């Protein structure tokens, strides 16, 4: 099975926990006309990682790096959910049954309906299992 087309490039930005960092990231992306489709912030003791799905990951990476941010690409996958009660449950059950280990996830609701973004330890394996169990994965071409 061809799985690469389902691997989506998330940008991950290391950020200290201090005022103005998120605004600085958002401003840089706005100025380069990069559209943020979804984002989340994970926090630890004194620092965090800002995770974002954007339409132009390469542009985002280069502008943020040039401003001194520490940026990395992270591979994630996107599962379509029904935009109605029980939508998350359906997907969570599939993931649970398939024994897929989720490192983190976040969701958004947009023109493609509700979407669950997943970071798993083995994307290729997870993609195959999810498709075989009948769920819909969004191709990276829908984002970038």
């Amino acid at each position, binding site marked *: 099975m061809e799985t690469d087309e389902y691997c989506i490039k*998330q940008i*991950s930005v*290391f*950020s*200290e926990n201090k005022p103005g960092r998120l605004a600085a990231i958002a401003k840089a992306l706005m100025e380069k006309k990069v559209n943020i489709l979804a984002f989340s912030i*994970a926090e*630890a*003791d*004194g*620092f*965090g*990682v800002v*995770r974002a799905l954007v339409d132009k990951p390469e542009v985002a990476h280069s502008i943020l790096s040039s401003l*001194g*941010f*520490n*940026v*990395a*690409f*992270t591979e994630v996958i996107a599962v379509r959910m029904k935009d109605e009660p029980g939508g998350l449950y359906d997907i969570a059950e599939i993931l649970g049954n398939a024994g897929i280990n989720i*490192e983190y996830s976040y969701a958004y609701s947009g023109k493609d309906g509700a979407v669950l973004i997943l970071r798993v330890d083995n994307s290729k394996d997870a993609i195959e299992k999810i498709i075989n169990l009948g769920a819909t994965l969004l191709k990276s071409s829908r984002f970038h």
Partner: protein
Amino acid sequence: MLQSDKVFWLFLPNTMTRGMTQYWDESMERLNGPDLKEIQEKRLRNTVIQAMKIGYYQKKFKESGIKPESIKKIDDITKVPFTMKKDLRESYPFGFIAVPISDVIRIHTTSGTTGKPTVVGYTKKDLDNWAGLIARNLTMIGLKKGDVFQNMVNYGMFTGGLGFHYGAELCGLTVIPSATGNTKRQIEMIHDFSVTAIHCTPSYALHLSEVAEEEKTDLSSLKTGIFGAEPWSETMRKELEDALGITAFDSYGLSELYGPGVAFECEERDGLHIWHDSYLVEIIDSKTGEQCTDGERGELVVTPLVKEAMPLLRYRTGDVTMKIEDGCLCRRAGRIERITGRSDDMLVIRGINVFPSQIEHVLLSRPEVGNQFMVYVDRINHLDELTIEVEVNREFFSGELHDLANLQNKLVKTLHDALEIRTKVKLVEPGSLPRFEGKAKRVIDRREIY
């Protein structure tokens, strides 16, 4: 100076003299003028003879072209090169011991910047001298037979425990060797044994007072507190005195000079009396090595005059102080100002010496982080906190939060192993810490201790 001391006394009205002043060894403690000089010079000559039994000094004297017999007068001391902490460390373990090891009846060590500690050895005579100096200090602050003394410091390799213990026994106090830890038990003993005097670090005393307050334990038997091993301010003195209902005294010493008991406050609490018959004091400019003029602050350099197992010449303490030349109401000679800082960048955190160079060493060994760092020292709830900011290496960042969290934990652990204290590590963005041209100012001490 000695003359002015006497003149000062002539003009004091009788009512101001301290009829109550107690001495352990009055003639020595009040020794001044030519008599003091005579005994200092005699002891200095003996100390040089003793030092010449050590390979390090034989070599140093030879290299500098100094004849041991040319060190006769006090002023001759300036011919002798300084002895540094690093010299002691490099001579690990017994390179500075001037007597057969079988004559060394106790060994203490102090923590160092690298793996090896500094070793200090004592003969029977050394331990007797040391206990005698502690007895002078305790007597000076009014403690005597009948007092109950709880010694709440480490009794292991640290010199503070056993040093005070034997001095306190010598002057007849009832000694409780409670050592450190278990604050509730410490408080219970103070109460149950009607303890009158305690010895500990000032920060621990504040902690203890808070716990006692919570437990609603009556500690009114206490009247005296002796605090040392870490710097503390006059503000903290007031806090300690109010919280515990005591009079607080500053104690100064360092292991290389026996341990605690080198200098101590008297009841006037206006500077530390340093025992001039046992320690020859110089104040130097730590950059040039030149003697400071009277009333000028500099690094305290000490030549112990009675040490047998481990004689030292012109030992650089790294502590900043100045001589106080005016006479003291207690009529003892020789005072220095309370220590006001460190001439190098050594930090004293919870009684443990920490050098920024140790931190640098740890960071250099970890490729995940950069070589820039900043150190912040705070005192939070009376406890010293060390926070180290370090930049994550750009290449290391994988995008995963848990990798960063693991790195943070790993750094805390490695630093703990190296420094022997727990630190807080803050990971900061690459390039965000200040870069220094010339001498780096990496340590920001936000405690108000001096």
